[in-house]
């Protein structure tokens, strides 16, 4: 099972500066079991966001957010609510957030950190990869993971090694992740993120959850009971 924990509400609210309304998207798969993405998880998130003056235009729980065609189809009936929303706040693992960001023309904000993938890459495996880093960076990168998509895992922008948007590692087949990030943020009018985001530093301590909890149901329940309060 994939394990996720809710990001602190202040961090999520920080992502929404300048926005009035959001659409909440949860996952009925692993995230529901983690207490972050299912109906209950979204209800809690909606309450907290409203408490911070954020309007929730609508919400949906989809199983599973890692399947892009399903996400695309499931969002269709919500078009009116999505129309009123400035962005989507997605409460699931890094793969589900990336998959949603790929099919949505709206900015996507991550509401969770992914703790462990339990050896799988989503129930429906696409090209999205999550590094179970426990400090999801997808907010600053347009929903494209810099840890897995960039050959160097760079979190502060591109290196000088790309040519025509191709990665120096496998130029024939691999696109520079930061070229893709730049393009998506530009399309969304959010390039300022690359300017204003503080220096990002990886926290490898968050990448090693305690052995007795990692990959167990107990871990998920534990986190749910603490309402996403972290480890």
């Amino acid at each position, binding site marked *: 099972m994939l394990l996720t924990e809710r990001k602190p509400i202040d961090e999520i609210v920080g992502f929404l500066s300048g926005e009035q309304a959001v659409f909440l998207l949860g996952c009925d798969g692993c995230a529901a079991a983690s207490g972050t993405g299912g109906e209950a998880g979204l209800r809690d998130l909606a309450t907290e966001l409203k408490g911070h003056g954020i309007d929730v235009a609508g919400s949906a729980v989809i199983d599973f957010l890692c399947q892009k065609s399903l996400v695309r189809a499931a969002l269709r009936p919500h078009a009116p609510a999505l129309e009123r929303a400035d962005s989507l706040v997605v409460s699931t693992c890094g793969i589900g957030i990336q998959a949603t960001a790929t099919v949505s023309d709206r900015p996507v904000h991550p509401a969770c950190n992914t703790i462990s993938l339990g050896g799988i890459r989503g129930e429906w495996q696409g090209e999205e990869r999550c590094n179970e880093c426990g400090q999801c960076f997808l907010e600053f990168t347009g929903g494209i993971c810099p840890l897995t998509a960039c*050959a*160097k*895992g*760079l*979190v*502060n*922008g*591109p*290196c*000088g*090694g*790309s*040519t*025509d*948007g191709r990665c*120096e*590692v496998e130029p024939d087949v691999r696109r520079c992740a*930061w*070229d893709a990030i*730049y393009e998506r943020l530009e399309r969304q009018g959010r*390039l300022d993120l*690359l*300017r204003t985001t503080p*220096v*990002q*530093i*990886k926290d*490898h301590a968050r990448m090693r959850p305690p052995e007795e909890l990692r990959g167990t149901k107990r871990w998920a329940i534990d986190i749910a009971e603490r309402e996403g309060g972290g480890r």
Partner: protein
Amino acid sequence: MKLTKLFEQGKFVVTSEVAPPKGTDLTEMLEDAERLRSRVDAINITDQQSSVMRLGSLVASHQLKSRGVEPVFQLTCRDRNRIALQSDLLSAWAAGIENVLCLTGDHVCLGDSLGAKPVFDLDSVSLLAAARGLNGGVDMEGNDLAGRTDFALGAVVTPGADPVEPQLLKMERKAGAGAAFFQTQAVFDAEAFAQFMERARPLGVPVMAGIILLKSAGMARFMNENIAGVDVPSELIEEMAATAKEDRPAKSVEIAARVVRAVRDVCQGVHIMPLGWEAHVPAVLDAAGL
């Protein structure tokens, strides 16, 4: 002497670079440095460039410093985590090194140790931020240091990147994280470089244009195909191709000096990468009037 001091004095700063050996024999590197020392303000020491395992840039920088040559210690994030990077910075300061060039580093796959772990715990931006912290007397965890560093911190930028916008944003992040000077990837097209400088100038950080000595038309074509952000214009390639082998060094010097003169008014210095032709650098500077 810190390069930042020279920029403050309004000097047009000139640097060059040498590479530590694959092995322990420093003779050639030190000879290269001797050829350059009287003509440049400082000499960069590359950090296992192109991911080829070599003698370390820290000790090589110290060797130059102890001979009275001002080193620019190049430090990449490819081979060390944040503990080793910060430790090497403290060691560098203790060894009298005052200039550091902070780079992400080439990917391991470009070098001669393909199975090595690419570290990239930090990157150029977070390394600059960490180094600025050490200058302020604290490590990355906020712990106080018994004795701080006071480095002039530099970074690199690729003016010829296509598209250039992501490079400019990264440059801005580097300046924001503490970069006090920039050295660029090789420049051949002075007009394109001037346009780049129009966009880089608002950052207010001195920029040194990178100059590579072209050795042959073949080398130019190789760089165009294999080095990101390097674009040797076809006129220059034709010019080299039309030059007899024995006349190539003179032609190379002429071209390099031409580029230096053409960029001189739009930037604050030049960084000359001789790539084995250290002996010709003085002639370039003579021809460029530096």
